[in-house]
């Protein structure tokens, strides 16, 4: 602009010179006639107006300046928003990976899991091998069907010794049904399910991780052999890195059914060890398939009443089965995070409203000086953008960290059974996060923009600026705070209920004393201990050696530890006519001292002792549930029971081999903590030994400290024994699915509730403080007219009290439906537990009252003279 104007003046001057004026005179006249350059520039600038980019830059600079000037507002807003966004986005990530993103198998809707059912075992039992063969032969609804052994584990022997590895045996079509092809090598050849298990060749396909770990990721792995369970298996393929199949966990070695050839379990229909998946034929509905498998199961029940009587069948879509358990949990967490986000938004809106009230003067001035509505809105947009951008960046960063942290908190074996949770960031989550951010930004823009009374901007210029706007903010702010309090109440109630659930769960009567109990699982090599005398001798040696270790008071063995579940068997009762029913009970095999080690409660009769060995008559101990169910009103001691078809020892079943009941114990929690008591029968290990069992020792000192010496002693006895899972009993209980789940839920819900409480306390404080500041004059007048301090307190606290009361009542009415919604997650607690609701209500009321007390005190300390003078 300067160049242009000077050019004009100089050219004019030259023209004047040409027309005869002296140079100096010409220049002077030119400048004079033009008028002031600076004034001309100003007028030009005004005429030109401000370009959009310039106005943007101005707004950004101004916005940053204003935000810096009120650090309290800025920090609070940014922190609040980031908190809400972080919590919601982190949970959204999990919800997306688990619930929204489908499992990575093609044509998922046609993929089914097929199960057996039984009254005791539930709706998702496995198939026995002979039943599976029946299914393959007789079904008319499946295009392809495959089975895998659900118990998965092999002993790998290599130069470094013996290692326990995760593995699964499978029929040949499993990977084809899942739509997976090995990334190296080939899949198993299609092998129509052969009844001769030995015909399945000893081949194995490695998982990607196993390939890296055991073979160094070298491409020459095909054709190499690996020794599993004492036999040599040839590697024929490697699975892709991304492959996951939740029911098999983190299986590293996928073999044919060869390892199970010769296992008696696989020949009997009583051993339901196989998981079955299948693909529906074209045009077949789930109902048709269900009817078909049920018909097959009914046929089996007729033909093989021992043990298939009372066993039905079930079909469920694979995704529903794999993800079913976790759905309500994730949805509850999502609800909690959503409520927290709501509170964050409400809080931020409140802060914005207060701030825009304080800036009314500024905006009125700008409006009067010529700023258009669009320009002022642009100001809000820019300011909003800065704050929202900062909080989103912070929030998303925190969400990523939180997610990683949460994943680390889940124990490895649990995460293996939920591989879908590991899914990374994807566009779903990005879209959700963007939506959240946009909502926040809209709030930031709309709230002050709507509050500006454009029609009467000059009203804002009046000193003090009170009036209609002041009271309407109080009403709006009050409504917002009520909403916050109600939401916080719901979150607190949820956290309280979940917390009490956790407490009830951990203190449920387990029938034994879990403290000072150290445990270990071990497996003796089959080759050396296949004879029962050898197995019995080994157990005796282990028990006596461990007993002599320092710090150990008692040693016992059992096939399974409490809380982890036991296999089922079916029994009959000698002397009772067989009415065709099967009595399914849990079956534990224990050493003589086991129940005393556990400190179980003996109700009648006696425990096992050293005389209950192979030469003595077979005996059994039953638990109270079994006694109540099958011997109501009588003394079971002395009565006899027998196995219907004993899974691994079919030769000892039937009424010809009765077991005498020698004792009754109070229920020990053999199944999960939150399951109802089930009947269990205990038999002595010397009368039915096995190569693998768990060891439980009672210690006089810290249980964890004896674990290393346990492992060392066992390895001294025989270095070929594989041990794993060394842990104290309390650890095992905490790590069990039920306890862990409730723990996580309670902590997360507690976290949400605490944050919500903090935020709404701040909200209450804000509203009351603002109201007090607006009423300073009124308070001054009251005090000048003789009101006492206490009446001022009462005035403020009454206002606060109303807010709290309404919020509380609304919250209570919301807590009860929330509790009902969550009832599947609760244990031992009613959805409307009065004690919990009362307690959390008290917490809420107390913190809200505390928050109101501070501004009330400020009101009471108002100097009436100052208050009156300032207006």
């Amino acid at each position, binding site marked *: 602009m300067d*160049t*242009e104007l000077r*050019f004009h003046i100089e*050219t004019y001057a030259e023209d004047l010179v040409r027309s005869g004026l002296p140079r100096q005179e010409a220049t002077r006249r030119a400048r004079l006639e033009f008028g002031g350059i600076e004034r001309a520039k100003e*007028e030009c600038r005004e*005429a030109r107006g401000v370009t959009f980019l310039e106005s943007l830059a101005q707004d950004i600079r101004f916005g940053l300046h204003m935000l810096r000037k009120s650090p309290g507002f800025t920090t609070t807003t940014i922190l609040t928003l980031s908190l809400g966004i972080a919590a919601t986005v982190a949970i959204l990530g999990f919800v997306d990976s688990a619930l929204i993103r489908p499992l990575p198998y093609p044509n998922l809707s046609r993929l089914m899991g097929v199960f057996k059912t039984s009254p005791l075992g539930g709706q998702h039992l496995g198939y026995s091998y002979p039943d599976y063969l029946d299914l393959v032969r007789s079904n008319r609804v499946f295009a392809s069907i495959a089975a895998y052994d659900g118990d998965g584990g092999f002993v790998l022997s290599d130069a470094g010794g013996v290692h326990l590895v995760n593995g699964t045996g499978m029929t040949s079509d499993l990977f084809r049904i899942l739509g997976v092809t090995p990334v190296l090598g080939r899949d198993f050849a299609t092998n129509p399910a052969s009844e001769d298990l030995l015909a399945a060749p000893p081949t194995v396909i490695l998982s990607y991780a196993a390939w890296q770990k055991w073979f160094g990721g070298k491409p020459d792995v095909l054709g190499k052999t690996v020794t599993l369970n004492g036999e040599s298996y040839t590697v024929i393929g490697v699975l892709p890195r991304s492959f996951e199949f939740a029911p098999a966990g983190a299986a590293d070695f996928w073999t044919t059914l060869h390892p199970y050839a010769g296992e008696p379990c696989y020949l009997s229909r009583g051993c339901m060890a196989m998981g079955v998946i299948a693909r529906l034929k074209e045009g077949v509905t789930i109902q048709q398939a269900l009817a078909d498998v049920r018909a097959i199961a009914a046929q089996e029940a007729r033909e093989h009443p021992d043990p298939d009587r009372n066993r039905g069948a079930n079909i469920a879509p694979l995704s529903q089965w794999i993800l079913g358990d976790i759905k309500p949990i994730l949805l509850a967490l999502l609800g909690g995070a959503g409520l927290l986000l709501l509170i964050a938004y409400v809080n931020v809106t409140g802060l914005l409203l207060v701030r825009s009230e304080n800036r009314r003067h500024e905006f009125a001035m700008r409006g009067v000086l010529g700023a258009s509505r669009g320009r002022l809105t642009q100001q809000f947009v820019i300011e909003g953008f800065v704050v929202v951008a900062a909080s989103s960046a912070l929030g998303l960063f925190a969400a990523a960290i939180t997610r990683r942290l949460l994943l680390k908190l889940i124990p490895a074996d649990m995460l293996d059974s939920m591989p879908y949770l590991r899914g990374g960031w994807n566009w779903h989550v990005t879209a959700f996060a963007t939506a959240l951010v946009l909502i926040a930004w809209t709030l930031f823009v709309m709230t002050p923009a709507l509050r500006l009374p454009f029609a009467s901007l000059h009203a804002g210029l009046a000193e003090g600026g009170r009036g209609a706007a002041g009271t309407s903010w109080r009403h709006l702010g009050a409504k917002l705070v009520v909403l916050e309090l109600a939401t916080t109440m719901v979150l607190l109630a949820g956290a309280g209920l979940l917390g009490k659930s956790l407490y009830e769960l951990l203190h449920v009567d387990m029938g034994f004393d879990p403290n000072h109990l150290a445990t270990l699982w071990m497996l003796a090599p089959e080759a050396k201990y296949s004879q029962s005398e050898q197995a019995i001798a080994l157990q005796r040696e282990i028990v006596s050696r461990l007993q002599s270790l320092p710090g150990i008071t008692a040693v016992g063995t059992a096939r399974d530890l409490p809380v982890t579940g036991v296999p089922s068997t079916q029994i009959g009762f000698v002397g009772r006519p067989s009415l065709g029913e099967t009595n399914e009970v849990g079956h534990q095999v224990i050493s003589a001292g086991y129940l005393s080690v556990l400190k179980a409660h003996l109700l009648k009769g006696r425990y096992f002792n050293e005389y209950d060995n192979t030469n003595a008559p077979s005996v059994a101990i039953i638990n109270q549930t079994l006694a109540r169910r099958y011997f109501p009103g009588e003394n079971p001691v002395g009565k006899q029971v027998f196995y219907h078809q004993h899974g691994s020892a079919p030769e000892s079943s039937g009424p010809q081999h009765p077991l005498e009941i020698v004792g009754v114990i109070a229920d020990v929690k053999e199944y999960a903590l939150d399951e109802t008591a089930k009947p269990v029968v205990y038999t002595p290990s010397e009368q039915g030994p096995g190569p693998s069992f768990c060891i439980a020792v009672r210690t006089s000192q810290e249980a964890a400290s004896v674990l290393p010496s346990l492992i060392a002693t066992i390895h001294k006895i025989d270095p070929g024994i594989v041990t794993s899972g060394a842990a104290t009993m309390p650890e095992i209980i905490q790590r069990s699915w039920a306890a862990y789940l409730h723990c996580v839920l309670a902590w997360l819900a507690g976290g949400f509730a605490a944050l919500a409480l903090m935020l709404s306390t701040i909200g209450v404080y804000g509203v009351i403080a603002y109201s007090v500041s607006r009423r300073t004059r009124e308070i001054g007048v009251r005090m000048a007219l003789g009101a006492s301090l206490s009446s001022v307190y009462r005035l403020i606290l009454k206002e606060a009290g109303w807010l709290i009361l309404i919020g509380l009542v609304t919250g209570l009415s919301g807590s009860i439906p929330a509790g009902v919604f969550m009832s599947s997650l609760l244990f031992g607690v009613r959805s409307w537990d009065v004690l919990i609701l009362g307690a959390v209500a008290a917490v809420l009321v107390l913190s809200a009252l505390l928050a109101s007390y501070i501004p009330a005190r400020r009101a009471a300390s108002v100097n009436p003279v100052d208050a009156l003078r300032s207006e």
Partner: protein
Amino acid sequence: MRRSNMALLQCFLLDSLGDKYILLRYLGDNGSVDKQLELLQGTLDMLILKAVSLGPLHGYGILLRIQQISRDRLEIQQGSLYPALYRLERQGWIASEWGESENKRKAKYYRLTAAGKRRLQTETHNWNCMADVIAEILRTTPEEV
């Protein structure tokens, strides 16, 4: 019939650029009488557009040309030219670019845009309409009322 009514209607719509007045110097037919005329700001804009429509010019050149085509009867106040030019540029009727003047100095040249051309036509039409209407009013004799 209707078209002429519309045309009449258009004439009565004054330029809505506000009511600022620009000082022009009317130099009279023989160059000696110096009367200062007050004309609407919109009129100056029209003159500038016309001047530029005859060929791209820098600010000083526009001044000279208006003087020239009015046969030295009209001289625009120098201080009011440049704000007008910036305003017209903002409204999109002229466009500017830097170039080299006759005396080899850097100068900003303005030219008419397509929208500006249309604007000039409209303004010219309005001006002529208005002139007709006012002239007719002024011709009214007492007998015609």
